[in-house]
């Protein structure tokens, strides 16, 4: 392990190589390295990454899919940069930051000088303060790391009953996932409905019903009061609050704690940086105390707070990479002019965001995060002073049909400028709400209708115009269609029968009555119906039969020919899925 990464040869004698140290090699830290390399092009750069977990970066979002058996634990590894300008120290944690000498000290005794420090230390699972959890007994797991997921999956092989503590997004996904593995699962949640931060009560009730159908025993309004341990292994959970019996005990060989997360701020705190819930940063993602130090992802607390969603961390990663790269490029130009001076802080740079394009012929295309890219390049919304990060706050439950975004759940406050329209359909397992302001969707909740959920997400993230009546957002809209023609008699004359050759039913009728056609062959010769892809042959045969039946005296002499043509030509037409304009194809 070398204390410093190899520094590539600079372009010119005066050009310096900016040194960037990234602490944390999770979803956001690894993405940031990719983003920065992308924007730096081939210019000099030296990146040092310290990753406390000994693994390559993996997709933490998919851990609940691993628990559910939907994803293979070996297949959630994320791409990581392979570039000589990047040195990754896996399994090496940072223990201190010397801001005076601009150096990060690692737990293996190495020191890593930086021009720019990026903290992407993430967050840790919150372990509730409950009797029986100190020390953590066997069978009790958080769901935050790859090891957690592996241990939970291993535990499902022997456990028959599980309890998930915490009914947020992760707890709901874990409960449904464990139920899908065949375990008897109780979901214990203190509020009256699950996911109460994102979902209004009505939506939460519909979600609770979905969970119940998935086999989850939903225990809302109940809180664990004690974890029961025998011989070092958990065997149950005592409940408080809304219980079925006083002092009720729920049996469990496996307990999954999904009680939220705590940002990892120790390093920043020890370095004397402002720390609140997370590491305090401005819109530029730099610490107000030290413009060379930045925080992104779960450990950061930007203005307006953080919801702990990866889309937000990736959006921050992209924005920071852009502004740093611009700052480095400015330094390059200064150096090239020979007026080298102290490096200005690159973090507080401003300037137009560049719509990222790949360099021509590059074999290493963009790893830019699409979600939010376009949004951030737009002018800020009403009253916004910072970057527009809208679109990064879509919460979707994997494995269940529930999605919430923008103004929803506890974030919904009365606003005279907005209009809220709701479809409350619990009997059918559906609950949809849209919040519209200034002609665009500013928030939505959708439980139980995946198609609508996808449409609402698209409308919300892209700010596309909403219908004049927002109620139209609540259901799929369908144009009126003529009832499928049950027989040629009821089929409108204008109906296109053969699309390839633009032949309508009326054309077929006309060539029979006026053109003297008496067989499918005649009709085809006269109108070219059936002579393209042939997909309308059945329909044409049916119409010809109907014409023949309607005028039997005319068709008799030709019936033999038609018979020879094959049985299909004289069978009744199948009722086809007629749209208004066609029955062909």
């Amino acid at each position, binding site marked *: 392990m070398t204390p410093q990464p190899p520094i590539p040869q600079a372009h010119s004698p005066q050009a310096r190589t900016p040194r960037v140290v990234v602490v944390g090699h999770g979803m956001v830290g690894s993405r940031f390295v990719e983003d920065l390399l992308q924007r730096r092009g081939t210019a000099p750069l030296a990146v040092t990454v310290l990753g406390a977990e000994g693994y390559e970066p993996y997709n933490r979002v998919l851990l609940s899919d691993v628990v559910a058996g939907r994803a293979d634990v070996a297949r959630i590894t994320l791409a990581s940069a392979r570039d000589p300008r990047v040195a990754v120290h896996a399994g090496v944690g940072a223990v201190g930051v010397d801001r005076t000498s601009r150096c990060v000290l690692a737990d293996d005794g190495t020191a890593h000088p930086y021009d720019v420090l990026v903290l992407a230390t993430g967050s840790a699972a919150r372990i509730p303060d409950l009797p029986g959890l100190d020390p953590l007994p066997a069978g009790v797991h958080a769901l935050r790391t790859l090891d957690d997921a592996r241990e939970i999956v291993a535990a499902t092989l022997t456990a028959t009953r599980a309890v998930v503590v915490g009914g947020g997004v992760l707890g709901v996904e874990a409960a449904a996932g464990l139920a899908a593995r065949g375990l008897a699962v109780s979901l214990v949640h203190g509020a009256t409905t699950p996911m109460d931060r994102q979902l209004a009560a009505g939506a939460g009730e519909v979600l609770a019903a979905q969970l119940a159908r998935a086999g989850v025993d939903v225990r809302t309004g109940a809180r664990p009061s004690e974890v029961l341990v025998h011989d070092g292994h958990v065997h149950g959970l005592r409940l408080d609050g809304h219980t079925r019996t006083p002092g009720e005990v729920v049996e469990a060989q496996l307990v999954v704690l999904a009680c939220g997360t705590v940002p990892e701020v120790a390093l920043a705190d020890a370095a004397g940086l402002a720390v609140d819930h997370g590491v305090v940063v401005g819109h530029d993602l730099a610490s107000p105390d030290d413009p060379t130090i930045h925080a992104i992802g779960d450990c950061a607390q930007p203005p307006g707070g953080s919801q702990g969603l990866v889309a937000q961390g990736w959006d921050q990663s992209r924005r920071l990479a852009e502004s740093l790269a611009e700052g480095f490029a400015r330094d390059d130009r200064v150096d090239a002019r020979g007026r080298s001076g102290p490096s200005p802080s690159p973090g507080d740079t401003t300037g137009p965001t560049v719509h990222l394009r*790949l360099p021509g012929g590059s074999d*290493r295309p963009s790893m830019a995060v*699409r979600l939010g890219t376009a949004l951030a390049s737009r002018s800020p919304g009403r009253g916004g002073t910072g970057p527009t990060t809208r679109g990064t706050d879509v919460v979707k439950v994997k494995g269940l049909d529930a999605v919430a975004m923008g103004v929803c759940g506890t974030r919904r406050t009365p606003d005279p400028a907005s209009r809220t329209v709701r479809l409350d359909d619990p009997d059918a397992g559906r609950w949809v709400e849209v919040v519209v302001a200034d002609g665009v969707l500013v928030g939505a909740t959708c439980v139980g209708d995946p198609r609508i959920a996808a449409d609402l997400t698209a409308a919300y993230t892209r700010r596309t115009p909403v219908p004049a009546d927002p109620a139209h957002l609540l259901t799929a809209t369908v144009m009126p269609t003529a009832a499928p023609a049950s027989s040629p008699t009821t089929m409108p004359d204008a109906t296109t029968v053969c699309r390839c050759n633009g032949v309508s039913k009326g054309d077929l009728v006309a060539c029979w009555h006026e053109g003297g056609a008496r067989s499918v062959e005649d009709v085809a010769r006269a109108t070219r119906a059936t002579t393209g892809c042939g997909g309308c042959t059945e329909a044409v045969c049916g119409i010809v039969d109907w014409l023949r039946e309607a005028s039997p005296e005319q068709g008799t002499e030709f019936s033999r020919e038609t018979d020879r043509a094959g049985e299909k030509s004289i069978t009744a037409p199948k009722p086809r899925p007629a749209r208004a304009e066609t029955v062909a194809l």
Partner: protein
Amino acid sequence: MTTSTTARADAAAPPSTTSSGTTGTGSRSTGTTSTHCPYCALQCAMSLTPTLPTPSTPAPSTPAPQSQTPVPGIPADGAGPGAAASGADVAPDVRPVVDVQPRQFPTNRGGLCQKGWTSASVLRASDRITTPLLRGADGALRPASWDEALGLVAGRLGALAAEHGPASVAVFGGGGLTNEKAYALGKFARTVLRTPNIDYNGRFCMASAAAGMNRAFGVDRGLPFPLADLGGAQAVLLLGSNLAETMPPSVQHLEGARAAGGLVVVDPRRSVTAGLADDGRGIHLQPVPGTDMVVLLALLHVVWSESLEDVAYLAERTTGADDVLRACAAWWPERAEGVCGVPADELRRAARLLAAASPARGGRGAYVLTGRGVEQSTQGTATVTAAINLALALGLPGRAGSGFGAVTGQGNGQGGREHGQKADQLPGYRRIDDPAAREHVARVWGVDPATLPGPGMPAVALLRSLGTPGGPRALLVHGSNLVVSAPDASRVVERLRSLDLLVVCDTVPSETAMLADVVLPVTQWAEEEGTMTSLEGRVIRRRKVLDAPGEARSELWILAELARRLGSTVDLPTDPAVVFDELARASAGGPADYSGLSHARLDAAELGAAEHGTAEPDDAAPGGTGLFWPCPAPSSDTTGQGQGQGPHPGTPRMFLDRFATPDGRARMTVVDHVGPSDDVRDEAPVYLVTGRVLQHYQSGAQTHRVAELERAVPAPFVEIHPVLASRLGVDDGAPVRLESRRGVMVAEARWTDRVRPDTVFVPFHWSGDGSVNRLTTDAVDPISAMPEFKVCAVAVSAVNPSADDPADRPTAEIEPSGRDRTPDVLSRALTSISATPPTDAGART
């Protein structure tokens, strides 16, 4: 297609060549000639029978499009100016009338669409150009003799080159030109003009597919397998292709997949093709425009995370899989849904359906096919690469019964990109910056390799540079109607107008020809001999059945004449068979090797098949239905297939043993989603996607001159969802105005739920106020230089009927949502909230 008992081509009728193609003297013949349709890359087989009209039955004359401005010197009454100007002995009204009948062939199986059936009408266009036209001092075009026209062109080209260098002359070709013409055009540019600046309209349609396939497979043949192979597959994934309208007879080959419920169509519109997946025949995924890449990344994610990939194939036949699969771990379906708008579970369902059809999982085979919808994008090459990555993960390419392909569009879109009219290429699909390729081709051409120019500018850059300081000052256009078909068309017009000299070779007064200083009348389709290479890489014969009217000449002759007048000693033969032989030699040893082919061999094989009465021509009877490249001559054969067994049989299926990469393995390349260059924003909150209708082809220069097609679809239209339309106050059938950063258009609104409420669709076959390419962006893919036709952002507004000039009207702001403004008409149009919700998303549409 077992129920067809109708007028489709009789399978027992052998292809006739009574007016034997090589003689080219068909004008008085009443025999029948086997050839292929003039339009798309499916190249449907047809038989043409010319008959001389008798005085009692005057031949029909096809009217000129009404929208066309009358052209001085081109009377609309059918008597071309050639007759008057030069006393030509063939007036259009005594030309034979040509009867079209479909012919059995593996691709069209005896079918023709409306364009094919009516294709002979184009031969009788009443405004056919029959004599060279020169723009006079009064600004009008006037008839001229060939000698005068060619003398003028040669003189001015020579002067420009002398004063400003050879690069001041540029050439723009087309994907509809025969192989022979495409080859001759490239040779003319590189040896006579010595300009690097030659590119062609194939840059608009095939460049991204070509770049993606070249990178992954080492060679680009749109379909590296016969189209009919699709029929045996259990699943077909079709991305951005509306082939039910663009090449209707090809739909027959999807029947097998549909019967198995395995047709997966990815299209932001519920196109006719997407409708083929209805009723349990498959799945239609309807992403937000510009996000097809995300669909593909999510499909690959599901394949990977659920361990559905072909492990052995990836290990033995690919490189780069590890990086690609790790990268797709970042695109779990729920994230993808947030970007592409396709529900996560539909993505899972589609991925599992494709995987179940893959050979590794015991399926009957699967194909992944891309079309312009995903390729005409600033991330087109990357999207094609993502599609290839998915196909490779499933173990499809290079396996009989499975594969990856790009559905080529233009008639000779395949051959057109192989023979050297592309800025960076020499014949045989060779690279112009490859010293060995230059050496080989220069030897065939009899020139010093050092005199060959290097790579030129790709189409959009070339067009942008016209008439700019240092840019080309003259342009020769062949087989392309740029004014209608190029992106950001208004700027193209501006650039063309700034040229010192614009020379357009065309058959009719197209919009581009009307801007020219010199218009040279050329032969079309049934008036010329040559070869085309279909979407499958099948080299087929185009045959002459009648003489061109007036003084129209083949471009082969024009190029040779210009070369002579420019003092060049380079030999430019004018006999298509001779040109082909030279093309074959030039291609020898290249990726697209034609050296084992000749007109004579293609004709003999077809005659042989006819004599043997092959009732159902298929690819088991080599030669009878054309031959697939690579087809090397014994001397250049490195495949070993032809050695010691006579001529090489051609290569219907490529990559069965190895890919054309140095190590024989397919290369997987990491790609990621970036998004459209012109994405929706508050000022332009609606996506515009463009496409085609069945009745028209490309810029419509041909199809607008066919009365039957014009009657069917006379004008452009805007497909708009009723929810969006009512928000904007746009009634069904009323004019609607679209405005992008580049331009404005107006056309009739057509309410339909085939489009998403965030998207409008417009077909691009028209010029003028209804020209959607005034709006499209010319931002290009960084690798292929292909422009992003398929998606841009527009403002949509109702047209005030009192205003006259659509371009002068201010854009109406989108009204804020009214609280009690639900038009009755919308309420009628939309179903009320259903009493029971769907149990799955698929049931909703």
